[in-house]
């Protein structure tokens, strides 16, 4: 395997209700790779299987058949607690609904993954503050989620995703619940992470326009990849054409 491959999915199948009359297959043997430092989007309408694919990429679920390697780790062979550790250290999730922990302020939310990683209190607080500063949330860090706007919550969520300096950021419709201006701001943060820190980012979206902002577009339909295309974004111009 090449050293610069971050995600490697081979012949990934996923079925539900296995062994029952209702058994059906959602993913029918997907093959694709994502290189380190790449900004890729996976596009598809609802029902295309993109959420199922995201769960598999995020190590929240296991494929029924096929091989999946994340940063050189064979997911199939990993035990449950190893998957927990993997999600903790290798993957940064950004959800459409933010999923911040209620009654827990922004700072503590960002600290959470570091806490599960076993980092000491002082160290993780310091790092969480630094991460919040990067998303320009320093002045709101002691506020609870219910005191933050949607854009602010998503910024905190991105800071939290970066907590353990993950190999890959997995963003599921990150701008889906935001107005266009705020969505623009969130996308800019992803671009910044991609350019300045060289983060590998997988963006899952139903929106073709948004996918145009990435380097490569994988289009999903009815559980099959129906096309791969280059996006309009490129490193040289750093602009959407």
């Amino acid at each position, binding site marked *: 395997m090449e050293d610069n491959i971050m995600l490697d999915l081979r012949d990934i199948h996923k079925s539900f209700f296995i062994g029952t009359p209702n058994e059906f297959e959602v993913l029918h043997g997907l093959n694709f790779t994502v290189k380190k430092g790449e900004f890729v989007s996976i596009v598809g309408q609802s029902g295309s299987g993109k959420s199922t694919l995201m769960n598999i990429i995020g190590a929240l679920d296991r494929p029924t058949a096929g091989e999946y390697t994340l940063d050189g780790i064979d997911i199939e062979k990993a035990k449950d607690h190893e998957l927990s550790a993997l999600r903790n250290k290798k993957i940064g999730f950004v959800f459409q609904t933010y999923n911040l922990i209620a009654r827990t302020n922004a700072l503590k939310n960002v600290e959470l993954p570091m*806490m599960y990683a076993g980092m000491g209190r002082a160290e993780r607080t310091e790092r969480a503050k630094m991460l919040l500063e990067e998303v320009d949330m320093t002045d709101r860090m002691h506020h609870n989620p219910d005191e933050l706007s949607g854009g602010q919550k998503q910024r905190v969520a991105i800071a*939290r995703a970066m907590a353990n300096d993950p190999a890959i950021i997995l963003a599921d419709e990150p701008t889906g619940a935001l107005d266009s201006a705020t969505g623009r701001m969130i996308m800019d943060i992803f671009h910044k992470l991609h350019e300045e820190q060289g983060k590998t980012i997988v963006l899952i979206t139903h929106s073709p326009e948004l996918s145009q902002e990435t380097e490569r577009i994988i289009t999903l339909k009815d559980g099959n990849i129906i096309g791969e295309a280059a996006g309009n974004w490129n490193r040289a111009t750093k602009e959407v054409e």
Partner: protein
Amino acid sequence: MLFTENVLVALAGLKANIMRSLLTMLGIIIGIASVIAIMTVGNSITSIVNSTMQDLGANNLEMGVMQKSRDNKASDSGENYGSGYVREMTDNDLITEDMLEAFKAEFPDDIKYILKFENVGDKGKVTEGSKSANVQIIGYNKDNFEFKDKKILAGRGFLNRDYEQAKKVCIVTDKLVERIYDGDVNKALGQEIEVNVGGIYYSYYIVGVYEYVQEQFSFGVSDNPTTELIIPYETARIANHNQNKGDYYFTLVTSVNTNNDEFATKVRDYFNINYYSRNDAYEVMVVSMTSMMNQMNTMIGAIQLALSVIAGISLVVGGIGVMNIMLVSITERTKEIGTRKALGATNGSIRLQFITESVVICLIGGIIGIVLGVVLGTVAVKLMGYEAAVSIQSIIIAVGFSMAIGIFFGYYPANKAAKLNPIDALRYE
């Protein structure tokens, strides 16, 4: 580290749902409070009973002539007493002074004193002009007077001839001297004092004054307490026109090295074999204070335990309440659990989080319950007029117990949370 974080999260959760948390804790609070209150009252009563009996003399044996039980089996504790009336007691059934002398000679190392006393009527009154003092005339034999070891403040104690010749002498308290003779002992000594006991007058010469000690468990302090006016035993018998050849009730004071339970049997056998084997109706029974005390303690302990168990049922009910609210909380927070799992929480850390939460609820409830229980118990004991004895032991047990309830009733919900599939949990709306 994770632990502190869990406690903080649990506290934040409790604060966010204050009403719900309080209602959940109520079962635990009531349960722990009742157990602690019962333990406090029980312990106080036990210590009061014990110290009262201690005062009466833990080294004492109570010995008496009693009617033979129907099944002809002598009983240690005398619970068969009065199971069948045969005939009245006669002189032949009594224990005479000669018998006691022989008895003393048989067990010189074990017997320190044989106490006899005889009251002359009920409460009496000494009147001197406008001054008065309440007294109880009581006759002590020589052993009893020595044993009571009254502190003589002025004058003297009884002499042998006082006992032998049944002299009409008495020893009074400084309290009486204070009330009748303005506290002047010299004025009191040698005086003839007249006591009115229900219309009958008895008079004695004061030969001594002893220090009055208030009884430990009397209610309140009276400025005219009934004090003992002590006279020789024989004098009291004459006053009562008691012409019996002997007595039927004694207290034996044994030496410190004597095993009272064993000695009680020896004494009973000694009298019954030597004097009562042919008696058709009466025999001697001996009860040791220690065995009475133990019986009493066992009884109080059993009552206390039974009540605590009943109160403990509400703890179980409280525990079920906690379990219920934990299940609700977990359902409400399914998405949070999914998020935590996505962020890298292991099943173990999710389980620990919810068990911690349940323990925190129970522990706070337990602490409130302890405070409430101590207050209730103390108030109850104070209302009975005694000093409350709060047992630290029961508080420690209560804390441990409420934690155990938290773990026991929190485990199932916490485990359920830990086993949630992260995808299902994330998708939950």
